């Protein structure tokens, strides 16, 4: 019993259940004292938030800060001794590498949950008529598929940022280790809340939660809001940490423009999630209060305006897709030179293009609202700002093509996924402008064309790159390589299957298949296409399953790889042994002496250990 209790995650989950009950009960008592009867919805909201706070108490997330507030001395993160072995991954660890892996595991768990939800409603869509789901179930699954995968992507981005960035810039840890652990663990009760929306009636709105539907529908939406709100805080605090780390913790000699390009991508993405995330939190908070207290934000009969919600919501939710893809595009730019053995073409422009996408991203949200009745004079400006995003994105594509040009290409598994990412993201990118120009968007809006376009950007911008990143940095984490054959099966199964789903969706969308509906008219003739898309969807599921099997068995049985497996110039490979030691570069000081991507240039180095350059410490 004590052994189970010492596992942080289990203890914290018990705390969360207790906290939810206490919160809901207290609210019931207060209402009773005020002479009001029991109401489930406010009890759910209060219980949800109190439960999340209790989870953090249970995991030990407040203990360091509590001691500081009480005026006690708190040890620095690197002086804290942590339990050895697998147990530390289930508790409140302050090591950025442990937190990075925790983020990664949560991301993969959510990826499989979100993907499975999609397979359930794809099965429903495989033929016309209703077979296994009713309307509310279908809508709940679609909405949760969206939001669970958004959470998964945010966690995946944080995983890469947390594990790789401090190693790349030679930092001993993140700038704020306690905050870092806090922002990971707060995401766990948040996902519990998010998924429990299914148990309390579900919700009908899809992931966008537009009022007035979200103001009226079943109360599962409140748990959805609470979950997203807390995931948002996780994202904001994680981004804050990454910005400070990249700006303040770089090793000697590493100027901003000789950082590995992935650090630039993470910096750009963090700037968006630090600021814009507040607006989705706010928009959901306002609906939450509108439901609880009858506040008139979005109901026209009570002085509100539903368009306001869309402005606040899309101010985050469009830049959000840049949060998702920028790190992925950074991975492409980071790994491509390693496997092409050539310098990255136009380093400065690629770095600036990440910033360019991030900043232009603030100006484009209106293109989601062309058909929803925004002021007419806003449409054309938003169209132009939207098309402007293609410029920095184009810079990245030309850089990749020029990097590939006349290179000495090698094709290990990470490189396959990089090439897949470039192709799929190109498809996603090229299908974007038709949805960004007003005249065509009026026809394409709310059809499966948008679904196909969006999934191509997400696969090209996140799914393919994160698989590449996992195959690439796996030896750094475990000291073993992932199985090559299984990796290749994964790639050659997933890529065509994905292309079939994406093109299939675009095709039926252009023919008039509306999105977010559980059923369609058999006379439209979409049955065969939908069946093919569903089968392809299952094939993606199978390929990811193969990936998970590979991930698990390679940890024990994979080929041992301790050195610089990919002949990279980056410090985490050229200086650090694999698996990476607990205190990173402690005892292995190095400094930056050259350019990061001068592959193939005789006698050039990016980083050198300090004692070899003759400049003793």
């Amino acid at each position, binding site marked *: 019993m004590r052994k189970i209790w010492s596992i942080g995650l289990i203890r914290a989950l018990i705390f969360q259940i207790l906290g939810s009950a206490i919160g809901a009960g207290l609210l019931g008592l207060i209402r009773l004292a005020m002479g009001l009867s029991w109401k489930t919805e406010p009890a759910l909201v209060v219980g949800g938030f109190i439960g999340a706070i209790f989870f953090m108490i249970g995991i030990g997330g407040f203990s360091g800060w509590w001691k500081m*507030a009480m*005026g006690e*001395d*708190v*040890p*620095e993160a690197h*002086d804290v001794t942590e339990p050895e072995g697998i147990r530390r991954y289930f508790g409140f660890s302050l090591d950025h590498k442990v937190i990075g892996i925790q983020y990664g595991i949560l991301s993969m768990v959510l990826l499989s949950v979100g993907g499975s939800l999609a397979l359930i409603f794809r099965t429903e869509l495989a033929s016309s008529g209703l077979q296994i789901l009713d309307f509310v179930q279908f809508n709940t699954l679609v909405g949760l598929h969206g939001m669970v995968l958004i959470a998964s992507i945010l966690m995946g981005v944080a995983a890469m940022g947390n594990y790789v960035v401090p190693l790349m810039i030679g930092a001993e840890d993140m*700038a*704020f280790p306690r*905050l870092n652990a806090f922002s990971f663990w707060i995401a766990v009760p948040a996902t519990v809340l998010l998924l429990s929306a299914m148990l309390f009636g579900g919700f009908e709105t899809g992931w966008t939660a537009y009022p007035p539907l979200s103001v009226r529908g079943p109360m599962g939406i409140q748990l959805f809001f609470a979950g997203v709100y807390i995931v948002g805080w996780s994202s*904001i605090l994680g981004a*804050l*940490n990454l*910005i*400070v780390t990249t*700006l*303040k*913790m770089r090793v000697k000699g590493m100027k901003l423009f000789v950082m590995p390009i992935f650090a630039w991508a993470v910096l750009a993405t963090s700037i968006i999630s*630090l*600021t*814009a*995330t*507040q*607006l989705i*939190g*706010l*928009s959901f908070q*306002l609906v939450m*209060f*509108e439901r609880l*207290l*009858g*506040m*008139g*934000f979005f109901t026209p009969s*009570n*002085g*509100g*305006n539903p368009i*306001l919600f869309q*402005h*606040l919501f899309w*101010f985050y939710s469009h830049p959000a897709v840049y949060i998702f893809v920028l790190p992925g595009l950074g991975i492409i730019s980071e790994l491509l030179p390693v496997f092409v053995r050539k310098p990255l073409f136009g380093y400065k422009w690629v770095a600036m293009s990440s910033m360019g996408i991030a900043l232009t991203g603030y100006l484009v949200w209106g293109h989601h609202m062309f058909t929803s009745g925004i002021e007419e004079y806003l449409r054309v400006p938003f169209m132009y700002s939207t098309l402007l995003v293609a410029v920095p994105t184009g810079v990245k594509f030309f850089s990749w093509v020029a990097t590939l040009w006349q290179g000495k290409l090698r094709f290990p598994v990470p490189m396959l996924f990089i090439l897949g990412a470039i192709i799929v993201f190109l498809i996603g990118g090229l299908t974007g402008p038709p949805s960004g120009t007003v005249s065509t968007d009026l026809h394409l809006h709310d059809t499966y064309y948008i679904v196909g376009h969006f999934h191509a950007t997400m696969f090209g911008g996140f799914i393919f790159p994160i698989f590449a990143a996992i195959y690439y940095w796996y030896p750094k984490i475990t000291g073993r390589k992932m199985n090559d054959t299984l990796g290749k099966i994964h790639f050659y199964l997933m890529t065509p299957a994905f292309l079939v789903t994406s093109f299939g969706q675009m095709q039926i969308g252009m023919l008039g298949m509306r999105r977010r509906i559980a059923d369609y008219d058999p006379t439209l003739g979409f049955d065969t296409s939908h069946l093919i898309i569903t089968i392809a969807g299952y094939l993606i599921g199978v390929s990811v399953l193969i990936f998970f099997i590979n991930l698990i068995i390679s940890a024990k049985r994979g080929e041992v790889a301790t050195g610089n497996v990919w002949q990279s110039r980056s410090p985490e490979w050229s200086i650090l042994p694999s698996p990476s030691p607990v205190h990173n570069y402690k005892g292995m000081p190095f400094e930056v002496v050259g350019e990061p991507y001068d592959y193939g240039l005789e006698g050039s180095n990016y980083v050198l250990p300090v004692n070899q350059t003759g400049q003793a410490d």
Partner: protein
Amino acid sequence: MSSITSSAQYQKKLAINRLGLWLFFASDAFMFGGLLVARFYLLGNRRLELEQTLGLIVTVVLLVSSFFMNRAEVMISKGNQKGFQRSIIVTIVLGILFLAGVVGVEWQTAHFQVNEGAQGAVFYMMTGMHAFHVLTGIIFLLIVYRNGLKGKYTAEKHYAVEASANYWHFIDLVWIIYYPALYLMGLI
């Protein structure tokens, strides 16, 4: 921070903490900005029906509290423990007065309820979110006061005082923008 020995390390840590705090303000400002957008989107050029005298009084109270907060920070940086504690106490009392004025009086006597139209929604949400931040600010100040009594802060090392002072000024700044948006702008 026992393990930080050298002053250079402390200075580096200080720079990191300061940047983190300012990034937090930037993030929070977007939330307050979003509420401001909601106010102008829903009410436009319409002014809320509020008690002008009361609004002016709470605004003055909060501005004066910021003055005392600044005094507290200056005092501790000169090593004046007694003056630092006195100023912190004045700041806390003024902060509580502000809360009492907004939540205790203004909310109770307003001409509209929370569920009465865009006016009620905007007013209670804007003042509510601001009051929540004032409340957290007061909690930070109480912690700082308690640790100050224990003599935890010196003229050289008092980052907690600086951070809570900056937070307090930030909340003040938000009110300086919210006050005209709620009380002064537009026509009844």
